[in-house]
């Protein structure tokens, strides 16, 4: 194998797995034929291949089927983000008091999300999409409040990301191909377990990790374990898991404050890049090559 071939292969390895398996050899042949006397890939070819790989990864992640599942299950999954606030509310209720706004600034947002979930299940997608964007904006506002426990530099970024992606999915998808009531039931049960773990196992490390595992497992089961589309949708629904693990990793290696720009890049940029990349690793059922 020539050096040129090896270099092209390295670039082609960045393509989504199913595309690579189906077109990798064919593309290599075209690239070699088009290379002429070149001994190394030109910068235009390199840029073109990188851009092509990125577009195909994004296309797979934002495929209509994936968005349809996220638009149905996302509004339910997001409700798991209310676990901490519900624990807080339970504490105040138990103390025989009513919490002030400063104690639960995100409470209105979760009520909006509950409404969005009901609207999405009822098929009122336009209203659900509008509500989802309002709720996402609400979460971003809560992130800015000085008295809120929500900060950029926390695992909470995952809920904001999931909110935004769900709002996007509700705006883009008509939800026609989404899985039905069993999937909704599975996701709802998952959220109830996570909320239970959040309320009764608050600040318990085992309960926190268990909640993350439950979210991932529930998302996979609800979205569909047997299809690549289901796995991709499950990865999107599990965004808070990725961010929470990332937060723990960052806390372990860096003790101290990080400025907002770096925090944003870490907790919002990295999970998005991860999702785009990992979405392309999921293997699609092999298509019939000749029709």
């Amino acid at each position, binding site marked *: 194998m020539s050096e040129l071939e090896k270099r092209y292969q390295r670039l082609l390895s960045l393509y989504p797995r199913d*595309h690579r398996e189906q*077109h990798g*050899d*064919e*593309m*290599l*042949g*075209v*690239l070699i*034929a*088009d290379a002429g006397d070149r001994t190394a890939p030109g910068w*235009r*070819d390199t840029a*073109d*291949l*990188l*851009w*092509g*790989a990125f*577009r*195909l990864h994004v*296309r797979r992640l934002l495929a209509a089927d994936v968005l349809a599942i996220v638009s149905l299950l996302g509004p339910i999954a997001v409700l798991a983000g209310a676990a901490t606030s519900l624990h807080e509310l339970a504490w105040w209720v138990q103390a025989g008091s009513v919490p002030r706004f400063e104690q639960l600034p995100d409470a209105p947002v979760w009520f909006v999300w509950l409404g969005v979930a009901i609207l999405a299940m009822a098929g009122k997608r336009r209203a659900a999409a509008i509500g989802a964007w309002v709720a996402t904006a609400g979460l971003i506002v809560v992130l800015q409040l000085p008295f809120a426990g929500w900060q950029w530099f926390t695992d909470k970024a995952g809920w904001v990301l999931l909110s935004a992606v769900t709002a996007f999915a509700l705006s883009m998808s008509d939800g026609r191909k989404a899985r039905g009531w069993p999937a909704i039931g599975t996701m709802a049960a998952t959220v109830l377990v996570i909320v239970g773990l959040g309320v009764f196992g608050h600040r318990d490390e085992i309960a926190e990790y268990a909640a993350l595992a439950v979210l991932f497992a529930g998302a996979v089961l609800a979205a569909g374990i047997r299809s690549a589309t289901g796995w991709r949708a499950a990865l999107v629904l599990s965004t808070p898991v990725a961010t929470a693990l990332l937060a723990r990793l960052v806390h372990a290696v860096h003790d101290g404050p990080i400025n907002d720009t770096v925090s944003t890049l870490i907790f919002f940029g990295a999970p998005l890049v991860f999702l785009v990349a990992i979405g392309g690793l999921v293997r699609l059922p092999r298509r019939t*090559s*000749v*029709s």
Partner: protein
Amino acid sequence: MTNALREPTFLILTALAEEPRHGYGILRDVEQISGGRVRLRAGTLYTALDRLTSDEWVAVDREEVVDSRLRRYYRLTDSGAARLAEEIKRVRATTRVAETRLRARLIGGTA
């Protein structure tokens, strides 16, 4: 009303209108059709083919192995041909208006 096709898409569909072609054949034909103005690269071509096959405008016609490397031929499907015909109609209508207005300008002699 359907959106206008992007130029690479239009040229790829045009390249496949006459007969099935393999990837490299499409690249060369697109260059020829456009008079050397558009030179597609492999990344752009296969990104477009990925979309065109999922939209069922293009399908795999046959495969052969040349110099121990897979060569896959693509063909235009009936829906792809219909979409290309629609685009030609759209471009022709626009061109006709442009021609008429240009002629009127030349006859009128105004800037």
